[in-house]
């Protein structure tokens, strides 16, 4: 109807099923319709910047939220954490290459991919993990491509283009028939990522937008995240990596070359 309230949310496409279910539930409860505009997290931010509109920003990882806050595109105070993401190795279903640890990725002939560390946060996390345990140069020899987004990183394993990617634990939940996740040892994980949400400064209906974030962060919202395999609470996340930082920044090593295996 004409009088119906509508919000536009710019979301990383990885959270598509969760957010769709949540938006549906939210509509039933409040009568506010949330249109989910889906795509790569960075692309979504660009789109908001270019269009100067949108009510909510829900990227797939924290780094773009940092950028969005810095550029004043979202309201810093409205930012909330919706779910946690743990860095892991994702392999093809059944783990045909028998990958157990990060050092397996350095074996000759292994085909590995990571997200583009300059554009995709899962790529940045991957570099950090490798650098931390001193495998960066060795594994780098096996990196055949940089994926342009978080989802593309997962798709590479799903389409059997590579043997393994360093990605999120949740990849195997997105596509359980194609992807298996191998968890890292807790000391190998320097940092826990999360899915944040915030209200856009361009929003015409900040109150409505805030209500959606509140709903997502509420137990009802958390239940939906949990249902789709996400780690919804910090407590649960801590089980995987008790000492890791939550969020925060990591700078690419200066001598890190972006070139990949020829």
């Amino acid at each position: 109807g004409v009088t119906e309230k509508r919000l536009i949310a710019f979301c990383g496409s990885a959270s598509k099923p969760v957010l769709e279910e949540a938006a549906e539930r939210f509509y039933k409860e409040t009568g506010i319709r949330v249109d989910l505009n889906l795509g790569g997290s960075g692309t979504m931010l660009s789109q908001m910047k270019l269009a100067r509109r949108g009510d909510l920003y829900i990227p797939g990882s924290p780094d773009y939220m940092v950028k969005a806050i810095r550029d004043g595109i979202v309201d810093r105070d409205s930012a909330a954490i919706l779910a946690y993401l743990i860095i892991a190795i994702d392999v093809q279903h059944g783990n045909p290459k028998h990958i157990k640890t990060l050092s397996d990725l350095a074996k000759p002939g292994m085909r590995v991919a990571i997200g583009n560390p300059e554009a995709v946060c899962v790529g940045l996390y991957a570099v950090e993990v490798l650098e931390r345990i001193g495998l960066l140069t060795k594994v780098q020899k096996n990196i055949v491509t940089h994926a342009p987004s978080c989802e593309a990183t997962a798709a590479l394993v799903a389409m059997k283009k590579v043997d393994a990617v360093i990605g999120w634990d949740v990849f195997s939940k997105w596509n359980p028939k194609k992807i298996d996740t191998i968890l890292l040892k807790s000391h190998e994980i320097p940092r826990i990522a999360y899915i944040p949400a915030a209200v856009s400064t361009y929003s015409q209906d900040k109150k409505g937008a805030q209500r959606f974030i509140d709903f997502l962060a509420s137990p009802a919202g958390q239940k939906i995240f949990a249902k789709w395999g996400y780690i919804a609470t910090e407590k649960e996340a801590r089980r995987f990596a008790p000492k890791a930082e939550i969020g925060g920044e990591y700078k690419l090593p200066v001598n890190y070359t972006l070139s990949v295996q020829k």
Partner: protein
Amino acid sequence: MDFGRSHNWKGITSERAFKAATISCLVLLTFFFVGIVLSLVTYTNWETMISTLVSPEIIFAIKLTVITATISAALAILAAIPAAYAISKFNFPGKSVVDTILDLPIVISPIALGAALLVFFNTPLGMIIEVKIARFVFEVPGIILAQFTVITALAIRLLKSTFDGIDPRYEQVSRTLGCSKLKAFMKVTLPLAKDGLIASGILTWARAIGEFGATVTLAGATKMKTETLPVAIYLNLAAADVEKAVAVIFILIALSLVALISLRKISTTRYHL
């Protein structure tokens, strides 16, 4: 030419070889296209296929795609007709500049075009248009505008060559018979151009059906709102749901095939009347 119909064909080997070579090249290319499309079958799952086909999301996407592509192709042809006529028949200062600019939308990737459109609606003019006329950004009209932007240059190129082939004499005669320039154009040039108009229309429409980059940038990718078939493919690929993406690709192909074949049939039948 009437080669190869008879059973006791008296062949001339080198000629046969040449014909075979060129046709092989054609068939090879066809197989190449068919092959890469068919290799998608490895990811096909009949259950997914059927469930996808009947899902309200995809039914909505099919409708949205057909409707927007038809509108934008119609608009593009309507805009391209006078523009192509002007570039084909009139001389004016700056014509070669205009001609080169019209190649640009082919060079610039659709995604960049979409970004430019997005920015345009931030300019004062763009804002006035959004407020006074219609909202484009992240709305259905945006899909049409995005498709229109991408396909119009193609339509102009195709129609220009149609108009180039029409003898101005016919228009002149109709003028002496009492038609104004506009009437002459409507009653003589357009009927003469009918064949080319139909062909350009088909190709332009096909291109609009497949448009993705500009659409997704300007109109966004919102389920049940601005999700066309190409956008659905992208979203499913982005969600790493390869089976569903492949299912949508096949739906898009099937839809286009049916439409292309029937458009060709209708237009040839009509033409022979």
